């Protein structure tokens, strides 16, 4: 907002939005709920020329297309919690959305995709999207594409989004005939804290588990395999082996994350297994 020519625009169509991105590229930010981006602008940490609001782009739907659930960029956490489709087919996101920090206001305003785009390593969304094996859909002047979540999150606040692209949706693969059990857990020092370690566990077809861990590293890490073989310990080992370089912030250093991660991961897996019983 420090830019004297700053504009907030609400394009009426995706074409219009893409055109704006083509023109302004890295000088534009795209706002879903703005819960993380707006304070950056308020504090002058970011000084874009244009903020593009997606309110009028009709991206707030949750739908099923064949073997995927599509969640639009404008879908809030409240909408995720209320969605029967999500509760049934993507319970991990239901669990995650209920635990969003900041009260009902943030659940109403914040969006899953906005969190993914911002890519704060301690946010809930990146861990869950990687656990789900979701694909991130992007649109830009050069066309539309989708990127697997694990390849989308490149580092802290760093994604595969090009400066002239915006996220339009995520697609989550679902296993139609197989039941799924999911648990999302996070460690916070206190209610208002950023997560220090996050873990998402998905159990499908009774035996196969996919476990992602976040907030302890700069990008989520994931391990998958048979859940009943070695039990949670196997996954804990597979994940902690990937924790060479931890994410650190004023709330906790790497040593603490290394200390606490095994417990959190084990408990998350146990929670999912408990649902399965």
């Amino acid at each position: 907002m420090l830019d004297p020519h700053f504009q907030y625009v609400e394009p009426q169509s995706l074409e219009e939005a893409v055109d704006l991105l083509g023109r302004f590229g890295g000088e534009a930010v795209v706002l879903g709920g703005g819960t993380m981006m707006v304070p950056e602008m308020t504090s002058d940490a970011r000084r874009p020329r244009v903020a593009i609001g997606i309110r009028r782009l009709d991206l707030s739907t949750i739908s099923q297309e064949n073997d995927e659930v599509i969640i639009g960029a404008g879908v809030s956490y409240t909408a995720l919690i209320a969605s029967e489709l999500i509760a049934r087919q993507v319970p991990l996101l239901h669990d995650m959305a209920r635990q969003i920090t900041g009260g009902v206001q943030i659940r109403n305003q914040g969006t899953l995709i906005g969190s993914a785009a911002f890519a704060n390593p301690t946010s809930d969304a990146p861990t869950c999207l990687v656990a789900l094996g979701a694909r991130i859909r992007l649109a830009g002047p050069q066309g539309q594409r989708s990127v697997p979540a694990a390849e989308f999150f490149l580092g802290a606040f760093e994604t595969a989004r090009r400066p002239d692209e915006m996220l339009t949706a995520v697609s989550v693969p679902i296993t139609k005939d197989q039941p799924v059990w999911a648990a999302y857990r996070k460690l916070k020092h206190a209610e208002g804290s950023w997560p220090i370690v996050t873990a998402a566990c998905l159990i499908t077809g009774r035996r196969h588990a996919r476990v992602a861990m976040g907030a302890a590293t700069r990008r989520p890490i994931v391990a998958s395999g048979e859940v009943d073989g070695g039990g949670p310990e196997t996954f804990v080992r597979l994940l902690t082996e990937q924790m060479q370089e931890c994410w650190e912030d004023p709330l906790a250093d790497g040593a603490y994350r290394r200390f606490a991660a095994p417990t959190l991961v084990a408990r998350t897996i146990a929670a999912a297994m408990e649902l399965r019983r």
Partner: protein
Amino acid sequence: MSNAKQRQESWIGRSVARLDAEKFVTGNIEYAADSAVEDLHHIAVLRSPHARALIRKIDLDACRAIPGVIAAVSGRDVAAITNQTPSRMPRDRFPGPIDIRCLAVDRVQFEGQGVAAVVARTSEIARRALDKIVVDYEVQTPVLSGEEALEPGAPILLPDWQSNVLMRDHFKQGDPDSAFKACAYVVSGEVVAAASTSAPIETRCYTAIWDRRASRLTINGTFQMPHPSRWSIAEALGLRESQVRVVAPHAGGAFGLKMVGHPEEVLTALLAKLTGKPVRFAESRAECFMARSREQVHRFEIGADADGRVIVYRNRFVADVGAIGAGGGWAMGLVTAAVSTTVYDIPHCEIEGTLAITNKAPWQGIRGYGKETGNLVIERAIDMLAKKMGRDPAELRRINLVSKDQLPRRIPSGMLVDSGDYHAALDRLLELFDYDGWRRRQAKSDSECRIGIGIAFELTPEGGSFAGSLPNGFETTTVRVEPSGEVIVTTSVTSPGGGIETGIAQVVADILGIAPSSIVVRQGDTDACPFGGGNASSRGMMFGGGAAALAARDVRTKLDLCAAVLLQTVPENIVWRDGCAERRDGPGAGIALREVASAIYTQGFTVASGVEMPLEATRSFRPKNVRHTPDQFGRTTSYPSFPYAVHGAAIELDTGTAQVRVLDYAAIHDCGVVVNPALVEGQFKGAIAMGIGAALWEELVYDDDGRLVTDCIKRYLLPRSRDIPALRTGSLCTPSPFHPMGMKGAGETGVGGAYAAISNAVADALRDLAPSRTMIPASPPRLARILCDA
């Protein structure tokens, strides 16, 4: 309850609703940032990114050229046209020369110190203009801890000083060295407390207007102490006090943070005068986090005989008070020392506190004002002693408490503790908390999630007035009855939210026989209110209410004289009930207050001829039990009253994650006679929440260059509703023999007890892993290190 009975009941001790309660719940209370001012301009302050540096040059040309910018000043510009900002403590108390300015002149003392300021049409333009200011710093290596500052060879941070020692206090009682030799048990340890801050939800804000024709400045803002701030601003600007009006509307919490002495008080006033425009400084949340306190390291030893009677306590500590500001927040370090030996009967004692100047922001007043830390350390010491002896910590405390009959009693620092029944409070607490029940639950708790239990007392001296400083030990209240019978009270005390205005109305209502809700209480305007300190040291009710009682009685005497004539009796036979004067001895109708008032104003030569006008009284209250002349031990005492509390906390330590959850909390407090129990309980609970926060989560963190990294609420963790359990509280009352109404003051009690009880509970959960060096807050990373080192 019938109406007649209600009329006869005293208003003292009743939990009446807040005055203006409707306004609070409809968003209609006016705070400092709400004042709508035409042509308002905005101040932005350029703050040093370096903790220690010389300022070679500041270039404001490009900044001044920005459209919308009407003024830009550097520290040198300001120093040329102002006097020093006076220090709240007398200048001669400092071991070297001080020169306190609202902007740094030649050198930067801490990161975030203001070096220049801009005034512009909008706050966006003002912030943008800061980017155009060019400062040539010569960066120096900062001194970032008290220990470092005291090391031989450390750079001396203030020009023409001999060391970085701001102040030292050292006192003894008895013969500690010999006493230690005679002990059966001696425990030593350390307490390392991190910096923490008040963080009220409303940050600071000042709006100033210079009226050229009247040659007068009006400044509206977050002032806990309007009169001292008026004095400070007038001195700095070279104005007469009569040329300055300070107005403090409702505040959104203060907790010591909004006391006199902030550089922006003077800066805003100056910029209003310079530009001739209304100007506002609105502190950002990040700026608010600069206010720091409590960072100190204590090394203690405590010794007891074979029966567990504590014989000796020694504590040496170093407080990192940062740079010297005008507010005098550093004095809290002295209070930390003075509060020992709190509630315990310890014959031998030695306390030595050193206040060290460093390159960090100056200490700002915080709730507890140093008492919380003094209590924390002795409570840790007692717990560690209990552990070494294999004694129950509650019982060890019990046998060492000063008994009720020993009070009033002098403690080693020279303070005379007024009254208290610590044994009764402990009994009540153990029952309310269900101490035995928690110990049983603890015995059954598993090893992964361990229950920890902590007990702690706190002694919270209140009503502090330091010799030679403003505010000092008095407050003033005026009670006036208007011709219509309306009662208006103006008082020198302010209320940052605790409801003192309601308590004062109750005091006056009780004497005049009217309802508190019919009284108008005016505060916070130096043009309208009598002189006083404002809000500090929980003195609002004690002093402001004490003054209100004196003034109300004077007015009552006048009213009685006239009412007696009207009712054909003598003044001694007049009682006031429900706004009417009646004859105590007999039937017959009464006379309404408005009739008596009207008679006094209009019939001064007949029925009211005995009444000396005006129908108002202004009285100050000065406490007893303050002694600024040294006693035979050379000590002075600044605090007249001694509320106290005892707390019990049950926590759960998850050894898998090193996280702490507060399971249960109970506390008993005694602040003497209480005017409005609900308001006092509310203060107590809020203070407990702050103490829990400071013990577990709240920590200001600086990087290796002395830059604050916890400058937002996502990093400085304030307790939320899910973080704290229901707080179960109770009270008892031992009136203060030194206060005419028996009051001791409320507002800070709660912080120290929680700070200590939680810390003790965590150590209890750590069991044999609890280190002798307690680090506060007990954050998960710290606890994880302890658990790992096992």
